């Protein structure tokens, strides 16, 4: 059957240059979508389950009375709801996602396929150990790769995210100090450029945080650090490469200084992608480092999790690896789940999670690492660093790069808002304008050591062509910000974003009177 046989071929029209208000609120492919709770109870089913026999009740008088308050949707309505929601998200598969310190790289679908093999996805953490030998072997193999790549002798696999890994690392340090009878060591040195998780983790386990200033080269001030050392210092937490995107070139001196003072060297491995396969943290004097599998090893970020944060340890901390951990045992593997099962010299500091860690992420990371191999992972670091330096080189004449003249950056390029001075445009405005240009903004206002920071991390999975287009967008915006000020036209920035599913949202109102869940209209009115 021929289509459109009574109509006429369409011609391109001028539509699109002006916003029109639609009757529905939808805008072509961007569909407005209510909350599932707005649909209410309808008696529909999205899952067909057998009819219960209805006789059993051994609930001991605890049976629920009354409704829970969940809406009813059929399967097609549910699928459409979530597909429409998905279309309001920017993702790495949509385009460049240069969020500094987050390593938004391509997430290979092979990893998803491997994690869904029933032999990995459909096994229970408390099945008899002899029925999951392949799972222990996978964990053991991943552990071997992580230890070999980092040059560290031990690894704790169970931490569930980067911050959980930090907790694991500091707990091992605390346990080691207690074993040495040095409970007086309660101070942790943290550079001012550190991720917020570093001081938060240190405080969580009872340490006081002492901030170390940065030099004008964007590195840890070694002299200031040395001046702060003393018999009460437990550890120093250094991110390397650091959050300015720079390698701490005095890292060996930092390690020697902290070791000389009897403390430990914790390295935040969030930026490990810059050096994987080219530099082993073990060669730099590191005692503990968490590895974000969701950054360096490409497990998907999933809109904010799940992550996975294994921690590699030096010999000094190896005995304190928390439960559980896998050991080779004769022809097979065994999972040590209780301190009574630990081997000689093993004194695990405790347990961080109910089961064995993020198995689904282990499988994905292993699939990624095997795909790259030792040679490919080295190339990952090289291309990540090359891409960042290319972006820096192409932008530093129109933007301001506070450390742009101190040498190469690593995997991310840092800019500040010096170039926006006098334009009336802020870092936030600049970021929001980038949304209209089709990009997810870079990390903004972090690190705190420069004013109005913009931290750009392209990662190695972006092509030169993509980078060139991004550079064009950034240069155009930078030039426009400067020119717009002369002409009194900066609304491109101050009102941005214009083209996203929502314009700027009122975060102040959200925090002042928090609405954290849907309430039925009647109840909502009564509350006002």
């Amino acid at each position, binding site marked *: 059957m021929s289509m459109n046989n009574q109509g006429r071929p369409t011609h391109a029209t001028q539509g699109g240059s002006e916003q029109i208000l639609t009757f529905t609120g939808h805008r072509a492919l961007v569909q407005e979508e209510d909350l599932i709770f707005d649909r209410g109870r309808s008696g529909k089913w999205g899952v067909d389950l057998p009819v*219960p026999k209805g006789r059993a009740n051994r609930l001991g008088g605890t049976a629920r009375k009354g409704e829970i308050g969940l809406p009813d949707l059929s399967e097609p309505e549910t699928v459409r709801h979530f597909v429409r929601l998905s279309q309001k998200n920017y993702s790495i598969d949509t385009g460049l996602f240069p969020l500094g310190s987050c390593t938004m790289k391509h997430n290979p679908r092979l990893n998803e396929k491997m994690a*869904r093999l029933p032999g990995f996805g459909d096994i229970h953490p408390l099945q008899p150990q002899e029925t999951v030998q392949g799972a222990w072997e996978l964990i053991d193999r991943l552990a071997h790769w992580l230890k070999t790549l980092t040059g560290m002798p031990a690894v704790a696999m169970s931490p569930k995210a980067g911050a959980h890994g930090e907790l694991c690392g500091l707990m091992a340090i605390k346990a080691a100090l207690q074993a040495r009878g040095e409970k007086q060591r309660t101070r942790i040195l943290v550079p001012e450029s550190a991720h917020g998780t570093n001081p938060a983790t240190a405080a969580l386990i009872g340490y006081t945080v002492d901030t170390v200033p940065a030099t004008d080269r964007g590195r840890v001030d070694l002299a200031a650090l040395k001046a702060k050392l003393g018999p009460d210092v437990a550890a120093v937490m250094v991110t390397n490469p650091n959050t300015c995107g720079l390698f701490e070139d005095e890292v060996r001196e930092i390690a020697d200084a902290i070791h000389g003072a009897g403390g430990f060297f914790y390295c935040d491995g969030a930026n490990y992608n810059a050096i994987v396969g080219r530099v082993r943290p073990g060669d730099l004097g590191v005692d503990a480092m968490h590895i974000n599998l969701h950054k360096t090893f490409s497990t998907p970020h999933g809109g904010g999790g799940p992550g996975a944060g294994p921690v590699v340890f030096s010999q000094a901390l190896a005995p304190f690896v928390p439960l559980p951990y896998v050991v080779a045992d004769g022809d097979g593997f065994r999972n040590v789940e209780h301190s009574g099962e630990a081997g000689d010299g093993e004194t695990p500091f405790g347990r961080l999670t109910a089961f064995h860690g993020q198995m689904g992420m282990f499988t994905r990371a292993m699939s990624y690492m095997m795909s790259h191999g030792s040679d490919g992972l080295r190339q990952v670091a090289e291309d990540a660093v090359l891409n960042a330096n290319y972006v820096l080189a192409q932008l530093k004449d129109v933007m301001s790069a506070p450390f742009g003249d101190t*040498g190469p950056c690593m995997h991310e390029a840092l800019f500040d808002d010096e170039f926006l001075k006098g334009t009336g445009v802020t870092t936030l405005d600049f970021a929001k304008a980038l949304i209209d240009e089709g990009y997810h903004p870079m990390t903004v206002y972090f690190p705190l050591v420069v004013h109005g920071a913009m931290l750009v991390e392209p990662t190695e999975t972006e092509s030169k062509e993509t980078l060139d287009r991004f550079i064009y967008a950034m240069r155009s915006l930078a030039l426009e910000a400067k020119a717009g000020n002369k002409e009194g036209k900066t609304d491109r920035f101050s009102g941005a974003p214009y083209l996203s599913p929502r314009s700027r949202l009122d975060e102040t109102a959200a925090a002042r009177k928090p609405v954290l869940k849907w309430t039925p209209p009647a109840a909502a009115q009564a509350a006002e």
Partner: protein
Amino acid sequence: MRYLPLTPGERQQMLAAIGARSIDDLFVDVPEAARLKDPVDLPRFMGEMQVERELGALAAKNMTASSVPFFVGAGAYKHHVPASVDHIIQRSEFLTSYTPYQPEIAQGTLQYLFEFQTQVAAITGMDVANASMYDGSTGTGEAVLMAARITKRHKAVLSGRLHPHYADVVRTVCGHAGANLAVEIGGVHPTAPEDLAARIDSDTSCVVVQNPDCFGNLADLRALADAAHAKGALLIVVVTEAVSLGLVTSHGAMGADIVVAEGQSIGVGLQFGGPYVGLFATREKYMRQMPGRLCGQTVDGQGRRGFVLTLSTREQHIRREKATSNICTNSGLMCLAFTIHMTLLGEHGFQRLAQLNHEAACDLADALAEVPGVEVLTRSYFNEFTVKLPKPAAAVVSALVKKGVLGGVPASRLYPGDKDVENLLIVAATEVNTDACRAAFAAALTEVLS
């Protein structure tokens, strides 16, 4: 290499644009001695086929839950997950997005988090819920820290029937916490009443009780809640089987101040223990002491409803060492799986699923009670209960494996060295078990015990 788009020629052009002679010039800040000259000693790159072959061989060594009659629980449960759940969570826009720091282009993630929070508050019977924790066990640790912040007291009283791994997580966190938090754990007995109220004193911040507990016992917690509140302590209820919330009176209605649950049963699957999703809900008055991410409703410049991360002044990236928790990520994609599955279930479906689970357990208990030498110990339960065997349960479970049945978790796996529980087997039943599965289990157990 298929994941790396730069060509050798482009690399040269880019180095030239940077003004570097070679890639080594970009690594000059690394101390010379630490620059590796060659790749480390690991296998070289592999194509998809090779990776699939190698990992497929490892996967094939494991006995999968779907391949045998399966009754393993104790903190993770085998449930059917509708096909659309796994399809939707693999959409690029969900799978490969980040924490919604730029809300204008992350409304998809934010809206489902808001829906998730609403669902969690509804099923727990609480006022507010956060956007998830790593899992139920880490959520329990956070809840104990939160109770200490609220009450400014130093002792947590834990039920001896709280999952021992959860108790270990709490002990580890509190043992290392700065506030000098003590943890007192009740005795382990699978059925005897546990007088936790008697352990509450003026320095007790909270009582932590699992319901149903680790042996499957289901209890009415109202009296315990009253006892805790009378002494100024909070009641924290831990739920490891979220499906139970469809059939059991909500813990909010029973007087809980914080409810922590493992959400794995809804949408997530077994996955050998992770990633899972921790549900965390509390009363409105404690909202600002909650750990983790929170999604809140607001409006945009045109007055349209939208969602943002909110109350972030509690969080590490703003508050640094003064934050309520060091948490940065939640369990985003697992929240999504939970939310989709819960949406498909709806009011009727969720309650029916819970009823089917309870009936499956009752049927299984009846079948196992017929096996000579087996005694069902648990009287009130949801979908999990404990049986006493005439010999050590660990050996029985291994013998059952040889007969192609995964028959539960020996209590000795969780409480090693405790002779009193050596013969106890914790058995879970769900909607996936058929009459044939139950008959096969009973027959295999009869043979193993005879």
